């Protein structure tokens, strides 16, 4: 069955976690870095997404730490999460290949 494309913030969160476990603030800064500063996740959007991804078993809690009296929870990608991200990458790659091919037919890429 073909899956629905991931929304960009979701794709970027999964991509951030593909590098290893990260806490909330780490994910936010990593997403900003991956997107070249274009996508700036904030706490509300991030935790709504993390809550959904956790309930869909694409992401899970790795461990919790207390840093400067504050709770820091680390998240990691689950095997189904990695598969979902891989499928999305493949989908984007396939679309990009077709797009590039057709642009070549038009007279080559700029």
């Amino acid at each position, binding site marked *: 069955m073909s899956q629905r494309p991931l929304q960009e913030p979701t794709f970027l969160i999964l991509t951030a976690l593909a590098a290893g476990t990260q806490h909330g*603030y780490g994910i936010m800064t990593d997403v900003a870095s991956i997107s070249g500063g274009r996508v700036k996740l*904030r706490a509300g959007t991030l935790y709504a997404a993390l809550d959904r991804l956790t309930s869909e078993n694409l992401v899970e809690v790795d461990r919790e730490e207390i840093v400067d009296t*504050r*709770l820091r929870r680390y998240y990691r990608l689950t095997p189904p999460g990695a598969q979902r991200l891989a499928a999305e990458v493949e989908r984007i790659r396939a679309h990009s290949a077709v797009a590039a091919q057709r642009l070549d037919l038009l007279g080559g890429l700029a």
Partner: protein
Amino acid sequence: MNAAAVLEGRYRRLLAIYPAEHRRKHQDEMLGVLMTGARAGQHRPGLADTADLIWGALLIRLRPARPGTAWPLWRDALAVVSVLLPLMVLAYSGLLNVATLATLRAGSPIFNALAGYDAKFLGGWAIVAALALLRLRRTAALAATALLLWLVYSIADAPNWSYIDAPSMRSLTVAGLEIAALVAWPGPRRAMQIINWRHYTLALAIPLGLASVSNWVGLADPAVSDSIVITACAVTLAGMTLASPLAQRMAAFLALPAYYLIATFLVPPSMIGGPYEVTSGWQGPLRVMVTCAPFAVLLCVALVVALRSVRHAPVDSREA
């Protein structure tokens, strides 16, 4: 108190808009992230962060509930509404209608017309209330449906559909809500396990208070009584949203009738047709907007919920 403590307190108040379960799981963590991202000396949440937190809370609240979480509370709220709503209607409309009749000359044509309408309206609600209190859920639902059909007939029978105004819409939505509350499982039987004397007292005292203000203060100064009724409705709904998760959900159900109650007093009768301007006919776009806007909003919310349900349904159930 330093700026960080002030900021944290404000963030905590903002996070109160999230469901309790979400707060229990993520509040400390979110506070940590928000405080880490705060500027030195910042003592107020930024506009973008505030908007994002409200948006996040909305996303969480519109998400279909997981089994065994929020739905039982919604069902309980609907069950309580099924028993208390008829009592509220009887208290509010009973007092107002009797007070109106008292100002008319007994036996006059308008007295007879109004008395006939009131007898059917209040009689219908009294039957629904009694059946609900007797825990006869299905019979009460049938009686409420008959009442709704009669209300629709009354509107359709009026010249130029002129009864389509805020008070009529309130009657229709209240009857519709009562049917929904009775049809939805588990209904009055469950409500009786939840309701105590305080619920009954409030369900009677608030509508009686509103009707009294609207009638007796309104005779002296309509503008003052209108302001009091509008404020009392808003404060009651706000109080319910803070009182308990069950009252919060009841407030969500009662918001639509409350909207039409407020609309009755908020918009000048000449523009939408007030309680006594039943033959004024259509009064232009504002009247249509005031009466139809809530349904447009409800339709949008229902669409969003339906789309999200489909989007987040397990793969197996989507394929089925």
